C-alpha cells in the first residue's frame, strides 16, 4: 500500500482513514534509514516529522477538513532554512548552522500540515550539476545502467531532492533551480521537476546562490503533485522585494490535459548533431504526441541560444561571489580562529568552501572587478536582455516551447573530470529559462537503451504555469511512463 505514494494518493489514503499519518511517516523514516547508501539526506528530522504526523492524525480524528498536503511526507533541499533543524547548504562553512527561522516556502508547506522528513543533500550552495560538490559527499542515483554497475550521478544541484523521490524516500520534495538545478536532476531520475516564473515563489529564508535567477520548485512523481506543491509554495511575500504581486492560482483544481489549438514551438537552435540519438528520438515522439493530441508544432528560432551559457556563467558567479561574502566566520557557521581578522577570513573561507564554490567566487569576483566589469558583467546583462527578447518574440507566435531537458543522461560518479566547463554544458537547455525568468518543467519520457531516464522540457511565458502543467499532463497521460528503479541499495 505504501509503495510509490503520490501526494494525491497519500491524501486519499488519509482522508479515507486507510492509514494514519504517523504510520506513513514511520514507514518513510524507516526507508530513509535503510537507504543511507544513496546519501540523499544530510539530516533526518524524525521527531519533527512524527510530531507533525500526529497533529495530522489528531485533525483527522476530530473530523477536521484536511488539505492535500496535510500529513504528506516531504523533504527539502538543505538550502531552505528550517527552524531548529540544521541547515547546511551542503557546505562545511554552514555545517553547524541551525536557523531560528523558517523559509517562506517551507513555512507554507508546514502551515498546510506537511510532514518534513529531513533535509536533502545537494551541490554545495547549489553550485553544480552532479551533486558531487557537496561537503557531505555525492548523492547516488537510484537508477543504474542495465549494462554497467557504475554508480551514477543524480544530477544537481538538487540531486538529493531528485534521488530521494526516485528512491521513494519521500512522497515529493522541494529543490531550487538557478540554471537547471531542479529540471536536470528530475530528468536524470525519471521525475517531474518544475521551475516557476521568477518572482512566483518567495526567496526569503532560502540560502541564496544567484539572487536574480534562484527559484524554488517541486520535484515529484506526477504532474498533479507538481501542481499541488507549486500552489502550496507560491504567492506574494512582502519580505522578498522581487516577489510578484500576482495572486496565487489554483493550479491543481484547474489542471486539465487539453492541448487542442495550442501552438508549440520547437527551437531550431536546440537541434544538434551532438545530441544523443535516443534523446533526439524521444523529442520527436513528443512532437508527434502533441500534434496528435491537437497541438500545432512549429519550428521557431531563439537566435541567441548559444550565448546563454556563457552569460549565465558570468551573472551567476558574480551574484554568488557577493552573496557568499556573508560567510566570513564572524557571525555564525564555521570559524577558523586566527590571530587577526584577515587570517581568520582566509582560513575560514579556505577550509569552509569546496573547490567548485571557490572557483565560482573567483570567477564572480573577477568579472565584477574594475576594468573587467563592462567587458563581462555588463555584456552578460545585455545578452540576458537579448535572450529575454528572443523569448518574448517567440511567445508572440507560440504558447509553449518544447525542448530536451538535458543533453545527456545520468553519468558515472567517478567519470574523470577533465574540465569544469564540460560539467557546465549540462545546463545548456535549462539555463535560458532562468535568464529570462520563465517557468519551465521537465517531464520523464522514457528510458534509453541502457535503461536510464530521459526527460523533456516545456517552457511557457511568465506566469503561465497553468498552461505549462496542462501540457505536461497531456504528455504524462499519453506516455504513461511509470517505471521505478530497481531497489539495489538496500
Amino acid at each position: 500500500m505504501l509503495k510509490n505514494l503520490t501526494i494525491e494518493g497519500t491524501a486519499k489514503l488519509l482522508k479515507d482513514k486507510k492509514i494514519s499519518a504517523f504510520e506513513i511517516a514511520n514507514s518513510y523514516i524507516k526507508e530513509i534509514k535503510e537507504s543511507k547508501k544513496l546519501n540523499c539526506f544530510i539530516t533526518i528530522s524524525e521527531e519533527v516529522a512524527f510530531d507533525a504526523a500526529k497533529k495530522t492524525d489528531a485533525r483527522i480524528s476530530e473530523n477536521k477538513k484536511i488539505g492535500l498536503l496535510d500529513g504528506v511526507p516531504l523533504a527539502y533541499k538543505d538550502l531552505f532554512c528550517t527552524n531548529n533543524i540544521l541547515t547546511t547548504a551542503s557546505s562545511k562553512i554552514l555545517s553547524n548552522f541551525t536557523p531560528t527561522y523558517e523559509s517562506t516556502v517551507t513555512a507554507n508547506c508546514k502551515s498546510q500540515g506537511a510532514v518534513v522528513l529531513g533535509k536533502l543533500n545537494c551541490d554545495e550552495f547549489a553550485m553544480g550539476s552532479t551533486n558531487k560538490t557537496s561537503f557531505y559527499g555525492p548523492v547516488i542515483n537510484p537508477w543504474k545502467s542495465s549494462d554497467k554497475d557504475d554508480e551514477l550521478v543524480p544530477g544537481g544541484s538538487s540531486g538529493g531532492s531528485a534521488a530521494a523521490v526516485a528512491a521513494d524516500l519521500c512522497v515529493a520534495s522541494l529543490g531550487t533551480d538557478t540554471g537547471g538545478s531542479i529540471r536536470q536532476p528530475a530528468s536524470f531520475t525519471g521525475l517531474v521537476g518544475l521551475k516557476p516564473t521568477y518572482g512566483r515563489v518567495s526567496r526569503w529564508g532560502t540560502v541564496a546562490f544567484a539572487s536574480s535567477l534562484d527559484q524554488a520548485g517541486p520535484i515529484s512523481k506526477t504532474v498533479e503533485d507538481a501542481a499541488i506543491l507549486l500552489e502550496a509554495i507560491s504567492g506574494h511575500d512582502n519580505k522578498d522585494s522581487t516577489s510578484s504581486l500576482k495572486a496565487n492560482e489554483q493550479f491543481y483544481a484547474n489542471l486539465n490535459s487539453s492541448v487542442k489549438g495550442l501552438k508549440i514551438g520547437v527551437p531550431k537552435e536546440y537541434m544538434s548533431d551532438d545530441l544523443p540519438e535516443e534523446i533526439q528520438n524521444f523529442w520527436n515522439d513528443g512532437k508527434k504526441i502533441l500534434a496528435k493530441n491537437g497541438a500545432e508544432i512549429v519550428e521557431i528560432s531563439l537566435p541567441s541560444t548559444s550565448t546563454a551559457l556563457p552569460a549565465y556563467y558570468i551573472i551567476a558567479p558574480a551574484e554568488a561571489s557577493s552573496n557568499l561574502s556573508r560567510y566570513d566566520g564572524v557571525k555564525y557557521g564555521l570559524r577558523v580562529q586566527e590571530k587577526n581578522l584577515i587570517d581568520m577570513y582566509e582560513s575560514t573561507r579556505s577550509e569552509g568552501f569546496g573547490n567548485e564554490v571557490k572557483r565560482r567566487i573567483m570567477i564572480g569576483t573577477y568579472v565584477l572587478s574594475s576594468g573587467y566589469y563592462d567587458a563581462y558583467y555588463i555584456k552578460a546583462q545585455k545578452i540576458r536582455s537579448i535572450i529575454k527578447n528572443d523569448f518574448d518574440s517567440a511567445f508572440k507566435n507560440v504558447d509553449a516551447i518544447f525542448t530536451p531537458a538535458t543533453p545527456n543522461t545520468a553519468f558515472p560518479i567517478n567519470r574523470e573530470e577533465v574540465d569544469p566547463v564540460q560539467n557546465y554544458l549540462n545546463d545548456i537547455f535549462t539555463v535560458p529559462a532562468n535568464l529570462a525568468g520563465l517557468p519551465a518543467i521537465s517531464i520523464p519520457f522514457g528510458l534509453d537503451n541502457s535503461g536510464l531516464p530521459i526527460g523533456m522540457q516545456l517552457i511557457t511565458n511568465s506566469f503561465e504555469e497553468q498552461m505549462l502543467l496542462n501540457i505536461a499532463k497531456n504528455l504524462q497521460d499519453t506516455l504513461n511512463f511509470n517505471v521505478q528503479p530497481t531497489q539495489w541499495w538496500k
Partner: protein
Amino acid sequence: MNNNWQTVIGIEIHAQVNSKSKLFSSSSTEFGSAPNTQVSLVDAAMPGMLPVINKFCIEQAIKSGLGLNATINNKSIFDRKNYFYQDLPQGYQISQFKDPIVGEGTVEIDIDGKKKIIGIERLHLEQDAGKSLHDQDPNMTFVDLNRSGIALMEIVSKPDMASPEEAIAYVRKVRTILRYLDTCDGNMEQGSLRADVNISVRKEGDELGTRCEIKNLNSFKHIGLAINFEVDRQIKLIENGDKVNQETRLYDVSTDKTRSMRSKEDAHDYRYFPDPDLLPLNLNQNWIDEIKKTLPELPDTKKIRFINDYKISEYDADVLTQDKSISEYFEDVATNRSTKLSVSWVASELFAVLNKLNLTIDKSPINSKQLGSLIDEIENGTISNRAAKEVFEEMVTSEKSVKDIINDKGLVQISDTTEIEKFINQVLIDNPDNVQKYKDGKTKLLGFFIGEVMKVTKGKANPGLLNQLVKKKLDN
C-alpha cells in the same frame, strides 16, 4: 596667508536619516541602546535574508533633495559595494552608485555678508555599518550591530569651497536645512552627521591639484582645523618640490594633524553592481509633488521674511533662523510684542543662559510663553528692564510664574506720580547744596537726583516718569 595658493574643497556629508526603523529592516534606530539589541535577522545577514526598502527613508531622502534645490530622479538603483570587514555583516554595503535618488542641487552660504552658491553633485541612500568595539577584551574585537543597516544619506558637494570658513558654513547650512526638514537630527556628537572633506591646492589659474580625503570629521571645529593643517601640509610638500599623493587621511583630534590611512594604490575595488535582491526604485512624480507640498519654510526664505516682517537686521535674522526651533521660539515670543525687546531677550539673554547651561532651545528652562509674559510686564510698565533681568534669572531655576516672581520680590514699578513726587521732595530737601548747584547751571547733577530717588525706592521708580518729574521739579 599663502601667496597665490588656492584651496579647493569638496565635501561628502553622511547624514543619518531621521527614521524610527532601518533602511531595509524594521529594527529600531534608537541611539544608545545596549549592544546588539536592535538587530534583526536581516541586519545580521543571516542566510536567506532579504532587504525590503523602508518607504519612509525614501520619503526623507526626497524631502532632503527638495530642500537642497535638487533634482529627484524618478528611477534610481541600489548597488552592492563589496568589501570585507567585521562590522559589515553582509560583506557588502547596499548603496547607490551610478543612479542615485537625488541629482544636482545648490546650497547658498553666507560669509561675512557675501553670498556664495555651493553646488550639490548628488545625494544617495546607503546602509550604515555596525560598530567595532576594540576595548572589551585584550585579544578580541567585539561587534555591535545596532547601527548596522541604519539609513544614511550621502550628500556630495561639488568642489566649490575655497576656505575652511566656507566649508564650515556649507556643512552648517546643510545641517540646518536637514534639521528644518526633520530628515536628520544633525547631532554631530552622536555621529548622526559627519563629513569627509576632499582638499587640494593649486596656484591660481592652474589645473586642479591632487586631492586628499580626510574621513569622518564630526565637529565644525575639527573640519576647520583639519583643513588648515591639510592645506599647509600640501603647500609645503609642493613648495619643497614633493608631490601630493592621492590618499585617504584621518584627522587626529589629539594632535590636530592628519595622517595617512590608505593610498590610492591600496584603495578597495568595491566591485559595485546592482543589488539583485532589490528592484530599481521607481518614484511616482505625483508622490514627489505631494512631498513638495509638505515642505516647511526653509531657512533662506524664513530669514528674508524675518528681515521684512520684523524689520530686524540681517545679522539678527541669521542668528534667529539658523535653527528651526530657535526661529519658532522667536516667532512665538515676537508675535504681538515689541520686536526690539523680543530680539534682545531671545538672542542675548536667553542664548547666554542656554550657552552657560549647554542646552539646546528645545531643552530651554524658560519656554517661549514664559519669556513672552516677562516681556509683557516690561511693555505694560509693571517692571523695569532692570527688574526684568532679576525676574529672568529667577525664572531659569524657578517654576513660579512671572507675576508671582515679581510680587514675591516686590519688583512692581512705582508709576504713581504723587508717590514718586513724595520721594523726589524728600531727596531735594536732603540735598539743598546740590539743588543750589543745579540751579546755578550744573544741570549734569540731574543724574545724581535720579540715582538718589532710585536708591530710596530700591530701583522701583518708573525711570521714564522719574526723569520727567525730577526735571520738572528742579526747573521750576
